[in-house]
């Protein structure tokens, strides 16, 4: 039980989710955010906040994005907590809506 950030976040990283999360469960990587599944309380607030529609309930993650469930869990242990929106990448709009971004993920 937790929500999961998927491919849509890669290189877009709008961080509106961070502003609304009541329990500060987002972790920040170089070009993507993840949710710490041990901190998420399933409040659903981040889902409509994400302009890229990149956040899903773990049971509803599209089949082709299932790898992100494990990725969120793994990187939550590594990446640092983020509780304030930072600077959005300058080329975010170029990456918006693109598929097959997994290969561009930086760890």
């Amino acid at each position, binding site marked *: *039980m937790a929500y999961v950030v998927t491919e849509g976040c890669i290189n877009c990283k709008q961080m509106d989710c961070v502003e609304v999360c*009541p*329990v500060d469960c987002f972790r920040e990587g170089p070009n993507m955010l993840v949710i710490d599944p041990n901190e998420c309380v399933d*409040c659903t607030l981040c889902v409509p906040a994400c302009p890229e529609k990149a956040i899903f309930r773990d049971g509803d993650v599209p089949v082709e994005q299932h790898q992100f469930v494990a990725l969120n869990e793994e990187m939550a242990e590594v990446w640092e907590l983020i509780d304030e929106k930072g600077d959005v990448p300058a080329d975010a709009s170029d990456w918006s809506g693109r598929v097959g971004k997994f290969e561009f993920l930086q760890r």
Partner: protein
Amino acid sequence: MNQTEPLNIPTYQKEDFASDQTPRWCPGCGDYSILAQLQRVMPAIAEQTQTPRENMVFISGIGCSSRFPYYMNTYGFHSIHGRAPTLALGLQVSRPELMTWVVTGDGDALSIGGNHLMHCLRRNLNVKILLFNNRIYGLTKGQYSPTSELGKRTKSSPLGSVARPLNPLSIALASQATFVARAVDRDPKLLQDVITQAALHKGSAIVEIYQNCNIFNDGAFAHVSERKSRDDNTLKLQHGEPLVFGRQRDKAVVLNEQLQPRVVATSEISESDLLIHDTSRDNSGLTYALSQLQYPEFPVPVGIFRALKAPTYEERVHQQVNEAKRQKPATALQQLLDSGETWRVAE
């Protein structure tokens, strides 16, 4: 109660306590955090108390908080407004082996149910009461509640509330509750710890949980929940530890000559002048004074205020019944009916 054989308790996971219902609160509600933290600690509570899931009951009244039993994979009642403690009492007396929880809110517990809450606490029924305090009526869309602050503008107090707020923990202490604590929805570690200690307590345990209603009273507890300010605005009560707080732990709550609390810098006083927190204090004077500390003049105390050992209501009931049975062995019902004063009505 008469269970002597050890039960074979399965090893539970957090998921075992989640029902098949999808929680329905407003997105971002503090209730999600309380539910999640409770489900996270339930496996350990089940193990430590040797209570199987089927011996756990969650009883609620009316309000947003009272949707709770639907989401727990245990037994539960969504009962009538303010009356959850009465159902808990009947159940716990007849089935003392159960672990009974009451989930309530500031409206349910302190308005319509204020009377029942007080008597449940004074009786020391073995029940764990989680009081979600969001200082507003959420389910009915934003009217002032018994804990709304003076001057609070709501739909039912457009010019500001003219009633002073109740302090749930002061009432609990005055009602002689044997376990009294406060936690915050956005501090998961504190919430998990306090819930666990409440569950392990034998007797009436009440936990006031500051819960953010992000729709009708957003930010009511921001001073104690924001990561940046909470260390400076809360006093974490720990048994045997001094009443020291602040990010640098450089401030203390002490009593002056008139026994009134005040905040001092720790550098201004000697270590022997620090007050040491004692949850086993039966005389409630200092504990009551702690419950009255209000932000911004004082830090908000969180954690366990009081934890006392005392016989429970159901223990006393069963002891009395058993003693009466011992002194006067069971008699046939007809014999009993014929035994007292009887008379014949003239025709």
